[in-house]
């Protein structure tokens, strides 16, 4: 009973600090939403309206049809016809993303049922743009080829035809898969910040000595400080996801219980990490920097938010296993997009729980009991 009363007293005090100085409320609730909007609108891997120029050496009905097909939807826009000599210059100047060269005799080859080729010069300096341009251009060439093949009576249908069906994100919008990542990244940062300062602040103010003169235990301090922020942080998660669904049309197909459990565990883990930093750091300056570094970089780079974990070097793949953001991103994508529940996502929940417990145990163990 006394233990609970002490934890309660610590939590109530922490809430009063927050009420006194609502900056941490803004930090917890306002900042994640603002960052989600900034990232959500700013970071998009969907490329549209890529300017491409054409060098049409054939000047035939077929070459014109090809050109039309390229620019029929919004993926590419027609940057005009240029001469072959100017193709290189246009790429160097960055005026176009790609140049499509249609060789002379394009229509003649097609008529005869021979292979007709087009040449694609792509600006490779933007890797993501180049990859997408190549993919889209190839797809269009293939589609055009099929439709020509079907039109000609003589030729049989192509032997193999792949029908793709992209589940969970049929339009392939990057927002749908980025929002969970952004949410994890932003919330990781905010949560670590929230607690990183609470213990070092007590040391700096001298109130820690006062606390230690009372029968309060270290675990009680750790839990008492964690509790109010876990509530605040879980609210922040739900708020961010609500904004994500509303603004970016991210679907929510899975179990809300799973969502709340994962959010709670993730937030508790990150707050625990902040607390550990706070316990070890001793002054607020060091604590702030350690908090920023230890939360931002791993949850950005190693969570699978931007870079797929499968593509990482083996070492980093192992490292990513201790990054809570990884499990939270996986969990969120599962709940929101794949419609999962805890039945599928219990390994992620278990990993987050384990991280949280380790943080609490290590924070308590590293808590210096004595002063001076």
């Amino acid at each position, binding site marked *: *009973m*006394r233990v609970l*009363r*002490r934890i*309660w*007293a*610590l939590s*109530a*005090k922490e809430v*009063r*600090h927050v009420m*006194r*100085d609502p900056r941490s409320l803004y930090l917890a609730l306002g900042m994640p939403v603002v960052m989600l909007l900034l990232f959500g609108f700013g970071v998009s891997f969907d490329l549209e309206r890529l300017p491409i120029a054409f060098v049409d050496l054939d000047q035939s009905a077929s070459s014109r049809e090809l050109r039309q097909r390229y620019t029929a939807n919004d993926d590419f826009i027609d940057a005009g016809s240029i001469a072959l000599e100017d193709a290189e210059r246009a790429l160097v100047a960055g005026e176009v993303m790609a140049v499509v060269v249609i060789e002379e005799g394009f229509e003649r080859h097609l008529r005869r049922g021979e292979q007709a080729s087009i040449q694609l010069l792509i600006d490779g300096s933007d890797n993501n743009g180049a990859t997408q341009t190549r993919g889209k251009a190839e797809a269009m060439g293939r589609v055009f080829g099929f439709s020509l093949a079907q039109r000609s009576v003589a030729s049989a249908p192509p032997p193999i035809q792949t029908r793709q069906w992209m589940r969970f994100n049929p339009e392939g919008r990057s927002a749908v898969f980025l929002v969970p990542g952004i949410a994890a990244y932003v919330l990781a940062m905010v949560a670590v910040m929230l607690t990183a300062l609470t213990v070092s602040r007590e040391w700096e*103010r*001298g*109130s820690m*000595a*006062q*606390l*230690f*003169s*009372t*029968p*309060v*235990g270290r675990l009680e301090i750790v839990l008492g400080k964690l509790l109010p922020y876990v509530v605040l942080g879980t609210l922040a998660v739900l708020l961010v996801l609500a904004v994500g669904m509303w603004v970016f049309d991210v679907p929510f197909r899975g179990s809300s219980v799973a969502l709340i459990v994962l959010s709670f565990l993730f937030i508790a883990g990150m707050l625990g990490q902040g607390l550990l930093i706070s316990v070890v750091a001793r002054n607020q300056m060091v604590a702030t920097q350690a908090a920023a570094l230890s939360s931002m970089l791993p949850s950005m780079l190693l969570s699978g938010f931007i870079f797929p974990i499968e593509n990482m070097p083996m070492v980093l793949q192992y490292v990513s296993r201790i990054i809570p953001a990884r499990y939270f991103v996986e969990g969120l994508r599962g709940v929101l997009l794949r419609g999962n529940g805890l039945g599928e996502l219990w390994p992620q929940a278990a990993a987050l729980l384990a991280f949280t417990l380790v943080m609490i145990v290590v924070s308590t163990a590293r808590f210096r009991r*004595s*002063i*001076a």
Partner: protein
Amino acid sequence: MTEHAIESRALRKQFGDFVAVDDVSFHVEKGEIFGYLGANGAGKSTTIRMLCGLLEPSGGSATVAGHEVGREPMRVKASIGYMSQKFSLYRDLVAEHNLEFFGGIYGLSGKRLRSAIEAAVERTGLQPYREALTSSLPGGIRQRLALACALMHGPEIVFLDEPTAGVDPASRRDFWRLIRELAQAGTTVFVTTHYMDEAEYCARIGLMVDGQLVALDTPRALKRDWVPGVTLSVGGRDLHRGIEPALALPGVIAAEPFGAAVRVRFEEGREDEAALRRLFGEVGRVDRVERVDASLEDVFLAVVGAGAKDEAA
């Protein structure tokens, strides 16, 4: 189980090569006001911190409120109140919330917490400041609030580490009235200070010099032992040149300037007012000669002086 409120046995604290507290032994009676005096850095705070379980002793042991500090720190902490030298409440909370917090930390809740707060507010006269932000309180009120927080759970013993440092004289007097009331109600008070006038209020005094407890007794006995004899104060003008020759008078132990006056201490029964008037009349003007009591300040200087002599020898 010991009958003393506090018992320290060869308590020792070493930081690297520096011995902050050097084998200190003493005991404090229940309900006593025990003064712990010494210059800054003499080891007062370090001793208090060890007794409160904030600092682990390097050697020796101590029993506080019947519990061994090293073995049962949590029990010790539950039976004591501690007020640190540096103001350490939460400045961004209002006064009452600080009381509420410390009450909660000591395990109070509900009705018992409310009545403990009322009692503390009543006792320390904080009624008008309950809703005030702690950072906005004047120094004297803050110290009273800190004391009130340390008393929330009705501890048997309170440790006050320089509770009146930097507080104006009127507030210091009020604060000491509180301390005396506490002791009358049966609470043991262990207090450090470097104001010698405050030390007069203590039932017994321990004097620390360089980590060692060099004297321990009632104020009266300390004065008798460390500043023996009879002190005469010579008041007037231009008297300081008479100090050297006065030391040569028969029976004189010491002669020191005290403001414009000179204080001359004789061995008991050998005081000679006429000789002083004659001697100082030659170098300046003597207005009056009167017998004065030794102060604790004299004791302190004598004790520190003895320590310095020991070192020289």
